[in-house]
């Protein structure tokens, strides 16, 4: 249909402006609740603008006006036709106690796979060190780990001064950021159909297994537990959960056993992936703090038994949190968050 463009724009512009004003208001305030009258007006304006777009689309001029209307219609369309749950105000405690553990349990299969890959890596790394101690330099390309375990224990236990004095906070911050980067990378590599995530988990397992066997062979198992457990019982599960999120992405990419399209599969897991990676971030902040302020201190400063006991308590609490938290209804009787 051919329209008288100037008159069309003059007549319709107030309605477009009104719609744009309402859209700006709705988009700026995610929690806004429109009254019935406002909703009716909003819908009416949307339909009128959409009709205007339909009219102007047939007109071979004014691409700018058409694009402007398309922009308005698309924004209004997204508000009117959105079927996903409207985003509610964020309650950190509710998210932590309900959403996070429930999300973890909902995708437990991916977590078990993540654990299995890491264990396979541990066995490979441990086996390689046991069979060929010379492979240490290849498996653990970090100077701190290449030292002879017995020698290191001797140095640590006879240290006269606190080598981290004045640097604990910095060291802690570096650990947190480094580990979170690794966790995000492990998650993101899920987009390589899981290959990257599997490699990251396997390599982490290789290093862990190699270090463990290296210290056990040197007769320093207790030192190893005292050194690793306080932060490791949080840090290692955190990386495993990042791997779980990565494997969820990979499963969505592969789509085996699902009739949904790739886009729908990715859309379905996106909120859960976000929840898990934020949970991982929290765990790694705690682990970084503990690693800098507790794990690096050994006997005689802190008895190994105390450190191992602390690690056991942490592990128990983490296990209880992930397996039990959020099983019951919320105290206010409201629906459980997905």
């Amino acid at each position, binding site marked *: 249909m051919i329209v008288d463009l100037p008159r069309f724009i003059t007549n319709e512009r107030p309605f477009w402006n009104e719609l744009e004003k309402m859209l700006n208001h709705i988009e700026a305030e995610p929690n806004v609740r429109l009254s019935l009258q406002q909703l009716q007006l909003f819908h009416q304006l949307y339909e009128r603008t959409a009709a205007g777009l339909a009219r102007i689309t047939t007109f071979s001029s004014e691409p700018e006006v058409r694009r402007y209307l398309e922009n308005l219609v698309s924004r209004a369309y997204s508000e009117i036709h959105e079927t996903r749950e409207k*985003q509610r105000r964020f309650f950190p405690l509710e998210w932590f106690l309900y959403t996070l553990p429930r999300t973890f349990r909902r995708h437990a299969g991916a977590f078990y796979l993540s654990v299995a890959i890491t264990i396979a890596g541990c066995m490979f790394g441990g086996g390689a060190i046991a069979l060929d101690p010379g492979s240490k330099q290849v498996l653990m390309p970090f100077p701190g780990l290449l030292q002879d375990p017995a020698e290191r224990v001797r140095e640590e236990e006879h240290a006269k001064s606190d080598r981290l004095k004045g640097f604990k*906070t910095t060291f802690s911050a570096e650990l947190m950021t480094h580990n979170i980067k690794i966790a995000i990378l492990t998650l993101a590599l899920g987009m390589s159909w899981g290959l*990257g995530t599997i490699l990251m988990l396997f390599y982490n397992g290789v290093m862990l297994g190699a270090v463990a066997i290296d210290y056990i062979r040197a007769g320093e198992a207790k030192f190893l537990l005292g050194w690793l457990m306080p932060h490791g019982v949080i840090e290692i599960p955190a990386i495993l959960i990042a791997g779980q999120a990565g494997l969820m992405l990979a499963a969505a990419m592969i789509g085996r056993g699902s009739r949904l399209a790739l886009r729908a599969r990715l859309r379905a897991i996106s909120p859960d992936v*976000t*929840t898990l990676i934020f949970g991982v971030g929290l765990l790694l902040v705690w682990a970084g703090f503990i690693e800098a302020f507790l794990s690096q201190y050994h006997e005689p400063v802190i008895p190994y038994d105390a450190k191992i006991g602390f690690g056991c308590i942490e592990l128990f609490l983490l296990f209880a949190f992930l397996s039990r938290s959020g099983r019951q209804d919320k105290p206010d009787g409201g629906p459980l968050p997905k």
Partner: protein
Amino acid sequence: MKTSTLIIRTPEGIVFSQLLAGPVSRFFAWFIDQLCIQVALLALVTIMGFMGIFSPGIAIAFLVIGWFVISIGYGIFFEWSWRGQTIGKRLFRLRVVDVEGMRLQFNQIVVRNLLRFVDQLPVFYFVGGVTCWLNSKCQRLGDLAANTIVIRSPKIHEPDLDQALAGKFNSLRQFPHLVARLRQNVSPAEANVALQAILRRDEFEPAARVEMFNNLAAHFRAKVEFPAEATDGVADEQYLRNIVDVLYRTRVENKIEQAAAV
């Protein structure tokens, strides 16, 4: 097939398109964002420098954490606060939107920003750039995972129709059926090219202008062939003005139609 637009059809039968942003405009927006991040980091370094006088350890720790949070959180914060835009995207009129035209959700923003870790491998967003280049909707891996696209959001511009006004007599108007066919055959983009050529005629060198009008006139002559009495003796530029006149100005026709109806 790779196109520059994404077509969305609403349940009401309305079709609207989103102009997809190409890798080049996205790269420039990203470059501006990187500059903003560097400025923010510089400010952080300065503030922590002062703090370091009192406690160097805590100052460095804050610097390390602040650096990390700004680098990762910049995109998430701005895209959430500004509905899919960062400073760079706003400057280049780009916006992140849901691929199905739905409301952009927080988790989509987080996922697309976290997946930059893979998109930027091995250097300078090589993986993201190649994926974007190959993908029909110009999505990098982060966009694919989050179901988002980056669009160009234009602003309304009313063309100055008076400047494009042809002479008082337009020989093409004598053939309304051919004019109607012309409107049918000419796409909005082609009409806009003709209009812009006339509006910006003074910006061209005389020789280039003659050549441009010659090419454009030939293009529109091929669309619909008007009889010789309508085109004989009409210069290329005048012919193009007549074309723009019949494409953009319909008031005269409406009046004639109204008069005929009466």
